[in-house]
Every structure is written in structure tokens, then in C-alpha cells.
């Protein structure tokens, strides 16, 4: 998987790569569909987590239980919604679901950020929206070219994967930007007092935040295929696809995701930089509040 685990959000927007892999792969000859009993066997593995938590007094049993229940309910709802949308096969419902997923991703990206300013939600949603939709449109319309173009089997999982990664990047980047700005207040202020422009005083923080946001995807790319088989490829292989075909798809997806993260991060940081500074080369410290 990509770095979906960094944020334990299992909102419907974050569709695992395996699902996309299975949609894109040709129908399998051997039957790999699961019965609910088999899903139950997998669920029972969670008991191991629960036992460890209780034995070590981690106090996480409740959290494990609620996370699991949330995951099951959310994915079940997703399954039902996808079933409906697949059957309808109309552009409007696909775009409506895509828009909903995008807004949820934008809001989720702000969730873990300690220091916020008033328009941070608007900026996050705008950045997720712009980055994910540009990249997904190019992928769908130019690279994958499904028939029809709005084919929900392709668009929804692909967008989900792009959104999940873009939101992780934006969240990491914004959190770092805001906390570094606070921690390095003395440095930033000193530079301003000695004649730095607002950009000269914030550039170090901006660069640091961009770097932090890009590290997970760069790590994922550099170990892809060595430490783990990426999620979408796993899905395609499970669905019986040709390995080299699956690899080609996976490479394409990696580039697409990296592009979405880069656009989303730079966009969200640029908007934040403009919102926490003003044209008089001042930092709007009053507007930055801890949550």
C-alpha cells in the first residue's frame, strides 16, 4: 500500500489500491471471491492485537474495536454505494461521489494539524481538489481511456488512491509548515527585523515542510517491489493479471500519485504562506491558533 497507513482514516474516499487493481484486471479464471466466513477468519486475527493490548496494558483495546467497526461499516457503505453507481453508469452520480470524496479528503487533511489559521479548511479542500482532479483527469482521459470516460470502475478507485496520497502529503506538509513557523518564530522574526522580505524569512520553513511532505512517496517509490508489492499491483495479481501488465500499471500509478502529491503540497503551502503573512512583510501571528 501507499502511505494510507500514516493517517488512520478509513473514510470512503480512501479506497485501497487492491480494489482498483481488481477492477482494472481482466476477470479471473479461478474464483478468488471471498465468502463472509473467510472474512470472519481474517477479522479474528484482530484478536491478536486485542490480546497484546490487554496484556501490555496499552489501553488500546477500545480504539482497536472502534477502528475495526468503523472500517467495516465504512467499507460496507462504500460497497453499497459503488454497487448502485456501477449499476446506474451515469456521469452525474460518479462526479457527485467524486466530489464528496474530495471534500472529505480536504477536511481530513486538516484533522491532525495542531496550529491552524481561519481559512485552512478552504485551502486544504481547494488544494486536494485541484491536485487530485487534474492528475486523475489526465490519467483517465489520456492514459487509461475507459469506455465510457466516466466509467466508475476506473474513476472512483483511481481518484480514491490519488486523494488518499494527496491528503497525506498535504496534511504532513501543512502540519510541518505551521509547527515549524511557530517553533522558528525567533528566527523568522529576527530575519524580518533585519530587512528580510516575508518570503526570505519563511523560505526555510517552506522548504522544510515541502521536503517532509514528499518523503513518504519518495520512500515508497524507492522500495517499491523490494520491501513490498504495491497495493494496486497486488490487486491485479490476485485478480489474475499478467505480472508485466500489472507492473506497467503500477509504474504509471506511482508517477501519477507523486505528481498529485507534489501539486497538492506546493499549492497548499503557497496558499498557507499567503494567509499567514501579509504584503507588509508581517506574519499574522494573531491568526495562528492551537487546536
Amino acid at each position, binding site marked *: 500500500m501507499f502511505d494510507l497507513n500514516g493517517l488512520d482514516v478509513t473514510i470512503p474516499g480512501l479506497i485501497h489500491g487492491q480494489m482498483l487493481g481488481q477492477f482494472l484486471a481482466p476477470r479471473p479464471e479461478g474464483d478468488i471471491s471471498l465468502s463472509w466466513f473467510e472474512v470472519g477468519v481474517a477479522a479474528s486475527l484482530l484478536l491478536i492485537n486485542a490480546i497484546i493490548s490487554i496484556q501490555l496494558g496499552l489501553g488500546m483495546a477500545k480504539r482497536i474495536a472502534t477502528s475495526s467497526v468503523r472500517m467495516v461499516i465504512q467499507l460496507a457503505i462504500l460497497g453499497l454505494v459503488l454497487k448502485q453507481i456501477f449499476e446506474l453508469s451515469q456521469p452525474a452520480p460518479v462526479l457527485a461521489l467524486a466530489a464528496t470524496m474530495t471534500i472529505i479528503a480536504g477536511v481530513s487533511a486538516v484533522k491532525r494539524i495542531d496550529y491552524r489559521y481561519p481559512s485552512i479548511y478552504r485551502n486544504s479542500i481547494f488544494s486536494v481538489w485541484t491536485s487530485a482532479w487534474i492528475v486523475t483527469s489526465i490519467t483517465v482521459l489520456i492514459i487509461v481511456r475507459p469506455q465510457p470516460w466516466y466509467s466508475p470502475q476506473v474513476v472512483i478507485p483511481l481518484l480514491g488512491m490519488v486523494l488518499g496520497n494527496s491528503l497525506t502529503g498535504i496534511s504532513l506538509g501543512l502540519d510541518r509548515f505551521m509547527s515549524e513557523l511557530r517553533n522558528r518564530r*525567533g528566527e523568522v522574526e*529576527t530575519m524580518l*527585523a*533585519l*530587512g528580510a*522580505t516575508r518570503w*526570505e524569512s519563511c523560505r526555510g520553513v517552506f522548504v522544510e515542510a515541502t521536503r517532509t511532505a514528499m518523503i513518504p512517496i519518495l520512500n515508497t517509490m524507492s522500495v517499491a517491489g523490494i520491501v513490498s508489492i504495491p497495493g494496486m499491483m497486488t490487486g491485479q495479481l490476485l485478480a489474475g493479471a499478467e505480472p508485466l501488465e500489472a507492473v506497467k500499471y503500477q509504474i504509471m500509478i506511482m508517477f501519477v500519485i507523486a505528481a498529485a502529491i507534489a501539486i497538492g503540497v506546493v499549492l497548499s503551502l503557497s496558499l498557507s504562506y499567503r494567509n499567514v503573512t*501579509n504584503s*507588509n512583510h508581517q506574519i*499574522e501571528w494573531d491568526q495562528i491558533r492551537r487546536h
Partner: protein
Amino acid sequence: MSQPPLLQIHNVSRTDTSTGKHLLESASLLIHAGDRIGLVGNSGSGKSTFLRAMAMLDRCTGEWIFNGNTITKDDIPAYRRTVIYLSQRPFFTTGTVEENLRLPFLFKSAETGARDSFQRDLAASTMQTLGLSPQILNQPAESLSGGEQQMVSLIRALLLDPRILLLDEPTAALDSDAKLRFEERILKWHRESNAGNEYGRAFLWTSHDPNQVDRLTDQTLTMQQGELILPTGPNSENQSANKSNQQANGVG
């Protein structure tokens, strides 16, 4: 008056943009070349807020006129090199003392500054007058003691050849020796740069210590709950400046 004021600020107010709390109420002040102004007040009275407002470091309303020119947003970086705010706690980046002293010369505003390049000899000689060995130029700035850091912070400002220094309790963290050296250096800078009297310098010094303010300055302003009260200075020699400050305040 023979010379126009070096800096005039008119009706400068600051409100916390988040809570709506008034932090500074319509302060006006004239600073002339050669002024040595003390600013006293309880902690929390707004002394730092006022000094920061003079350096335009926070969002404020009001008017800033330097040497007859109204400061607009594009002038601000260059203005801040000329009217330098020195905070209570000096800050240094990782790197040597010399790298820290060079930092302001990397900014775009250096092109329009009084000095546009770093002068190592000048840095070394300024250090010696402050009782610092020029050898510390090669030391990491963060390894210096608190007193040394405050001295280096002053040198960093002086190397930019400022017209006005806004000193926010600069000696609060210094021992008595270092405090005296710091005070002497400021007075020396003030005396020497005003001797030629073509380009006069001025400073504004905030302190908790009334004796220090008396020792260093010739007029005293008081901050009280965000309001600037002008002036209570006992010295008569600078009455003209006092009077003009009263007039400036009266405008508000």
C-alpha cells in the same frame, strides 16, 4: 526646529486580529536625530508591542514617516534595516558567528541598505570594543553565552549602519559587567555617529530599571495599558523634542 524629525509615527494602533483586544491605542511620537529616549512601564503594559509597531513588525494602523517619506509596503524591508528592532532574546541560526553576521547581507534589501556588503574588519573591530575576541567569528553562534549572544546581536545590527535602534530590554539577561559594556557601546555609537551631525542617530530603550533609563536617556516615555504617555523626562536640555512629541501626540 532646524532639522525635520528622523521618524514620525502618527496614531499607530494595534488590535489583536483574532481576539479583538486593543493592544496599542493611537500612539504618536517624533524621534529626532540625536534623541536618546527611554521607555518604561510594567511588564504587559505594551512596551514591546510599541517597539514592534515602530519597526512595523505587526499588523497596525497608522502612519510612519521616515526622513520625510511615508513608508509604504515595498519600503518596509529597507525601513527595518534602518530602524532596527532588537528583541529581548537574541536569535541565531545554526552556523558560525560570522555566518550570522553575514545573514542580513543575503537579503534583497541589502541592495538599498546603507551598507550592502559584509565587512569582516569592521565586525572584528566592533567586537573588540565590546570586549569580545574576534576569534569567536569562527565559533558556532549557538555556543556563545547569553551575554555574548546579546553583544553579537547588537553587532549584527550595527553592521547595517542603522539610524534608529529600538532596544527591547537588551540587558535584562546580562550580568552587571556585560550590562555596562553594552550600555557603553550604545552610548559610544550614539556619540560618534552624531558628532559629524550630518546623519544623526537615535535610540529608544525600554527597561524595568528607572536608574538605567536615567543613566542612558534624556527623555522618558511611559507605557500604561497600551497607551503611550509623553514625556516625563527630568532633563531640560531636550525640551524642544519633548514639546514636539507633545504636539505629535496632540494630533491624535
